[in-house]
């Protein structure tokens, strides 16, 4: 999972894609996650950190995380050639 070069993310959750001209809002937790993805953290590492800090089950987070990644891909914010890459 790589965040494309054209993406700019502000500290308050505003996202701009200079390739498509689209802009987006992240909710606070979405901002946390995208920052971890930008740091090239793997899913397992992200999950460990989230479960440590938040009151959430691993399965719920896994489902939400993959849904979030699908949205990022839909909006051309991350590159993911192989749909089975998330692991």
């Amino acid at each position: 999972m790589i965040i494309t070069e054209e993406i700019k993310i502000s500290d308050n959750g505003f996202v701009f894609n200079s390739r498509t001209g689209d802009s987006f809002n992240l909710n606070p937790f979405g901002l946390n996650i995208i920052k971890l993805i930008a740091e090239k953290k793997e899913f397992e590492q992200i999950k460990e950190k989230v479960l440590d800090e938040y009151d959430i089950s691993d399965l719920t987070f896994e489902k939400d995380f993959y849904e979030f990644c699908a949205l990022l891909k839909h909006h051309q914010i991350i590159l993911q050639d192989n749909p089975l890459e998330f692991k």
Partner: protein
Amino acid sequence: MEKLIYEKPVISKINAGMPSKFGLPVKQKIISEIDGLAISDLMEKFGSPVFVFSEKTIRETYSEAKRAFETRYPKVQFAWSYKTNYLDAICSIFHEEGSWAEVVSGFEFNKALSLGVNGSQILFNGPEKSEADLTLAIENNASIHIDHFDELYLLIETARKLNKKARVSIRINLDAGIYPIWDRFGFNYENGEAWNAINRIMLADNLELIGLHTHIGTYIMVGSAYAIAASKLANLYVAIHRKFDYWLKYIDLGGGFASKNTLKGAYMPGTETCPSFDDYAEAITNALISSEIPHENLPLLFLETGRAMIDDAGYLLTTTLANKRLNNGKNSLVIDAGVNLLFTSFWYNLGIFPSKETSSFTEETTIYGPLCMNIDVIRDTIVFPQIKVGDQLVIERVGAYNVSQWMQFINYRPNVVLIDLEGKTHIIRKRENLETFKSLEFNPKL
């Protein structure tokens, strides 16, 4: 260390140039209780989905309507529109408040009788009245609202056979300035058909014409339409006296008052645009009082409003079954109540609300029911907060028509619960079960 409250990660696209027209409140409305009872407790006790009716709201709405008319006109009588909601417990509340019964079939007529309504306090409307239905109505001294000439002649014949006099009114369709004109029910005013029918009835020995009835449509957004209708009925009322030296007993303006639900495609929410009972009352009573009818001969005014009387008192409590992201990135929810339980979702954008505090982050969401059918869409687009599986939602203003027009499909119809004035709950219609259906079926192969 105490853990932080989790909220699922979301990203939403900003659509520039499309600000909200109304500056709608940012804070999400929550319905956490009905008449002081927690949604979670109601659902734990009665299951999901479940219809809940508030007796308090029913009585308050009735009082409001009654006050609006009785403070403006000397003789007013409401008749509860059975087809809007004919659960026994609901009808009984209206009858306790003083409503007569307005029925449109033999089934509804018998239901009213079974609830102890005196036959003379039943208005029998509708285009479908069999000879047996008419016999029942004549025997019980009901007021039969004639819909068409075939029915008029059947009624004359039936009354002759019984050697009894039938008390009748005629339903009149007219141009009240709103479109479409409902011309499929009753006799037309403008082309003289209604006047012909009146003359025929006045000549019939075994019919006693006692009233005039119209019902101009449904969800009527302008009171002035009722004023036109009332004026036209008043003209007939006076014309009958002029020709036959006879005053009728009543004028029935029917129903059709809008509820506060928002129609699909409406520019503004129904709560902002829907006329109040006072608006309707002002238009109707002014028209009657300022007509040519002498004040000492003003007719009794019947009103059969159903939707505006009961919609607000009904809620459907439902549970979120799934969150789904559609191909275009749009969020969607699946809930456990489908369009088979919510007939009104076909024409209203029903208000759907979480039952507890949610994240402040909202996005456009489609809400689907659980039916395995593509048409099962409760809300095509609603700005909605993040909802988790299992979260309980409340659909408001579903008291009218849904529990009379609902369909059983792939699952059982749910419990219907009434919260009484003391805050006690009562199941007023039990959830169906397999036996409900087995008991009606016969299998020749077994």
